[in-house]
């Protein structure tokens, strides 16, 4: 059997190769020594600028209450963006942004000391805490100067969002007085439901790149002009261009997406013609796609990025456009103050505000609303199914321990030789010793196409799948990427060279149980979930996971040594 180098070995090799200088500087939160907890005032501290403030939240994934969420320790960039932000992790990230080891920022933004820092700094997020920050900024600036924008992936990711078809999040985001949003996972509620909400919501639902497939007519408003602080601000929405590829198209069969650069340029030009002082793109393209788009579409001042869940403590500048990356799961609120003079942005000041739930007093009205929304499910969500001795997390290009658990569950509960779990980036983190509640299980699985299928696939088919998904992540041109992380595999190991072209990246497929190479012609029993095809048969994945955790009682995962990575 080909020996498989573990993820840990890979990390050590990478760290050694890049000769990282130990971080000793202070983080962008500044003046806060390592291991010293932040206060609400520290988090809000901001030297105001100009007359316009943009607040950005994104990829909340329906997380109403504080949670742990571990950032990735592997997030590879390819082509021009190799080792560029946001493709930095752990020590490399802290060195780049001068973040002290062990600091609050280190906990919020990096992964390598997650368990101990989580115990020091506590959970992050919670919409009642977000509401406190938003209210404080509105009070400081005056509400007439502040625009609150939501990048989408808001209505999916929890049991209550699934049960209410997103209504819980719509109510909360309405109470937060969100001005506009765009979307991705929202579409998995189905076309009719999305339209119903978009037509009624008090906020604008913006997406310039969604068209009716028959007549190519816009399905949603493309943009909206706001007036804040005496300036006219055009906000253009961009839904995930790959929604119809990444998610089940049969749920919105008459809608087409795509990047639609030419139409984007027209939206920008029309905004300027209508007198916009500031043009903001509220985008769900993902960071690398937005970075490329900024070089090709002229006249955008600010791109508020999302989808790829990156959290960056500084803006990234591309020509005359700045990009902000505001993280996910309610962990951060971005604030951008803009000075506007003679119909142009003359200066921008930025802060990625970390939502440390222990430091921020919950907004009483939002706390009450969240409790009311969760009340019908509270007992069910709190049900303890088992416990974990291992840190359970999602993010990482190739593995996450939560997916290792889901893959194990499919192997045992569905009596499969190999299991496949999609590379979703959403879902909370559990610390060693934590209870695995129904809430924890559904935070990692709640979505509208959960069937866990079981079927035969040949070795050749398995390789094709891995190659296809790998090209969606490691295609050197971000416009050809589909998003997500690598499909997670149970029962099978493989090697991947991310620098190779499509079709040549994957090798050494190994059936872990026997240690034998995967035979291209042989059929294997494969279980998986989240198929995008209509009519997929099988029990919902949360029931499969529940049965497995219930039977195991305590989860102890071995180091996943099944993926060997090269070409980084």
């Amino acid at each position, binding site marked *: 059997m080909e020996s498989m180098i573990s993820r840990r070995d890979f990390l050590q090799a990478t760290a050694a190769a890049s000769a990282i200088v130990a971080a000793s500087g202070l983080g962008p939160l500044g003046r806060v020594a390592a291991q010293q907890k932040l206060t609400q005032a520290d988090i809000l501290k901001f030297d105001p600028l100009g007359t316009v403030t943009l607040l950005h939240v994104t990829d909340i994934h329906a997380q109403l209450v504080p949670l742990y969420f571990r950032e990735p320790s592997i997030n590879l960039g390819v082509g021009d963006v190799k080792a560029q932000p946001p493709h930095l992790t752990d020590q490399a990230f802290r060195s780049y942004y001068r973040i002290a080891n062990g600091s609050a920022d280190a906990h919020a933004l990096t992964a390598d000391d997650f368990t101990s820092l989580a115990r020091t700094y506590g959970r992050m997020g919670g919409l009642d805490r977000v509401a406190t920050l938003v209210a404080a900024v509105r009070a400081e600036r005056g509400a007439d100067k502040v625009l609150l924008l939501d990048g989408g992936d808001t209505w999916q990711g929890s049991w209550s969002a699934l049960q209410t078809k997103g209504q819980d999040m719509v109510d909360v985001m309405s109470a937060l007085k969100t001005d506009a949003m765009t979307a991705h996972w929202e579409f998995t509620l189905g076309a009719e439901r999305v339209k119903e909400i978009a037509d009624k919501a008090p906020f604008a639902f913006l997406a310039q790149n969604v068209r009716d497939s028959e007549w190519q007519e816009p399905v949603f408003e493309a943009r909206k002009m706001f007036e804040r602080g005496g300036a006219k601000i055009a906000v253009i929405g961009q839904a995930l261009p790959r929604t119809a590829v990444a*998610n089940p198209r049969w749920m919105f069969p008459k809608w087409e997406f795509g990047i639609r650069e030419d139409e984007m340029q027209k939206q920008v030009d029309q905004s300027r013609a209508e007198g916009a002082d500031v043009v903001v793109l509220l985008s769900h393209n993902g960071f690398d796609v937005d970075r490329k788009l900024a070089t090709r579409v002229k006249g955008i001042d600010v791109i508020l990025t999302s989808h790829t869940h990156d959290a960056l403590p500084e803006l990234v500048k591309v020509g005359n456009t700045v990009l902000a990356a505001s993280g996910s799961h309610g962990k951060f609120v971005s604030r951008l103050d803009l000075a506007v003079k003679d119909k142009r942005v003359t200066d921008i000041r930025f802060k990625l505000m970390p939502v440390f739930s222990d430091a921020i007093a919950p907004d009483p009205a939002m706390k009450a609303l969240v409790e009311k929304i969760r009340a019908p499910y509270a007992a069910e969500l709190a049900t303890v199914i088992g416990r974990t001795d291992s840190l359970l997390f999602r993010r990482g290009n190739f593995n996450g321990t939560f997916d290792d658990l889901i893959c194990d569950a499919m192997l045992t509960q569905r009596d499969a030789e190999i299991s*496949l779990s999609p590379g979703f980036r959403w879902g909370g983190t559990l610390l060693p010793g934590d209870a695995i509640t129904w809430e924890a299980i559904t935070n990692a699985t709640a979505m509208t196409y959960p069937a866990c299928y079981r079927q035969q696939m*040949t070795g050749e*088919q398995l390789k094709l799948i891995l190659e296809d998904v790998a*090209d969606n992540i490691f295609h050197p041109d971000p416009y*050809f990427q*589909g*998003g997500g992380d690598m499909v997670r595999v149970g029962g099978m190991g493989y090697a991947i060279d991310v620098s190779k072209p499509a079709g040549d990246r994957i090798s050494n497929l190994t059936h872990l149980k026997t240690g034998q190479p995967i035979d291209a012609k042989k059929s294997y029993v494969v279980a998986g979930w*989240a198929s995008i095809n209509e009519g997929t048969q099988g029990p919902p994945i949360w029931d499969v996971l529940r049965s497995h955790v219930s039977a195991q009682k305590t989860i102890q995962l071995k180091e996943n040594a099944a993926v060997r990575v090269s070409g980084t």
Partner: protein
Amino acid sequence: MHVVSSEYSRRDALRLAGFASLAVIVAAGRADATPDEVASAIAKLYGEKKFGSGKIKLDVPEIAENGLVVPINVEVESPMTDADYVKAVHVFAEGNPLPNVVSYKFTPACGKAFAATRMRLAQTQDIICIAEMSNGSLYMTKSQVKVTIGGCGG
């Protein structure tokens, strides 16, 4: 405008659950064209003539949302007068069994050389577009369209 459309039908692969869709395509073992075959077919049509670049705007998606109906828009820059117009536009899909997907013929009366259609693509491949001008000059451009099994995004 005269349209010649190929009758190629993609295997009905998307019916199977999960990741099985690509698998069926492979198992079916089609006789797809190869890029070399398409290149030699083009060489046979135009011999040693040189192709210019520019003039053609070929608008195809980077990633097909539905391989059964991939939208394609072609526009060729031309005054479209009796003295100077686009005579024909040919679209080739390098990986399709019948690679000459569609040909459009134009006259100055068309006003502009623009055409839009949808084509079936079973796999990732280059789309090649050739424009024949009234003075005999030729232009060529190509764009890749990726056909993926999808899923796993998010």
